[in-house]
């Protein structure tokens, strides 16, 4: 079991795995919205409709891979820390966004092969889903940059040594 947890945490890569994987949905879903809008403005024709469809699929696949890594990182945060609650909101928003894009994809399956433009219902879902995923990604970023979750997780000892060698007043472990 420990090897699985270590794998999901990215110990083997010396880089947390969750922030790597989330690049894909975070780029694909807002990207799909941009492609939808371009398609609405009659740019790109069916190529743009298809591109949006493929982008949503790629985002969904990667988000499913990102879920277990995110859960493992979240369970590593102590419950009394403020980042725990942010992590909870982050997860709920992501689940909503993923569900919206899954429905969105379902609406497109019928006609993405030859439709010249994206219709109104999937476009609306793209707007909603993108708003959710940007909000959620912002919370995820806050966890890292404001609360230091996952920062120097694998190199803590090295940095401590460097700080001590430089004569810094390092607090005890």
């Amino acid at each position, binding site marked *: 079991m420990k090897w699985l947890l270590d794998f999901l945490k990215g110990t083997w890569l010396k880089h947390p795995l969750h922030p790597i994987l*989330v690049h894909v949905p*975070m780029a694909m879903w807002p990207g799909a919205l941009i492609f939808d809008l*371009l398609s609405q403005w009659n740019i*790109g024709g069916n*190529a743009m409709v298809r591109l949006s469809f493929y982008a949503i699929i790629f*985002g969904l696949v990667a988000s499913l891979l990102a879920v277990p890594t995110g859960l493992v990182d979240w369970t590593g945060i102590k419950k009394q820390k403020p980042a725990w609650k942010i992590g909870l909101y982050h997860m709920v928003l992501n689940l909503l966004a993923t569900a919206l894009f899954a429905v969105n994809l379902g609406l497109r399956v019928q006609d993405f092969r030859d439709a010249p433009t994206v219709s109104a219902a999937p476009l609306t879902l793209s707007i909603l889903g993108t708003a959710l995923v940007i909000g959620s990604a*912002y919370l995820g970023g806050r966890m890292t940059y404001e609360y230091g979750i996952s920062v120097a997780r694998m190199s803590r000892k090295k*940095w401590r040594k460097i700080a001590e060698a430089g004569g810094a007043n390092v607090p005890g472990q």
Partner: protein
Amino acid sequence: MLKDFLEGKPLRHPLHPMLVHFPIGLFLLSFFLDLASLAFPFVPNLVRGSFYAMLLGVITALLAAVPGFVDYTDIRSDHPAKRIATIHLMLNLIVVASLRNQFGRALPAACRSKNYRNAVDLLVRRHCALVCVQLSRRKPRLR
């Protein structure tokens, strides 16, 4: 003032890591669509889609470069992360420069004429830089 904005101070979140999602994701999408276009030559519009994805990727990469450079200048030169950041910067410049050269009609033409050996060759040249991006992603978090 401008420096504070580019460092993401109003959002209390650095701007560079927000923007880099887009080139990384879009170049990957472009790569997979290129592979799909070789595997399924009968599916229309894959090459065009790959082109659009890459175009948006290059635009967002250039956007991300600006706050990235501001963050870079803030790392002290005696910090161990400075060297990693320099490599990160160089690799990203190589990637964008090499992708920009791909905006010709060579790949679509090779696919249309079913000259797949030529197409694979173009693909490899187009995307070998992606590996560099992934390697350079191990960027410093400590300042």
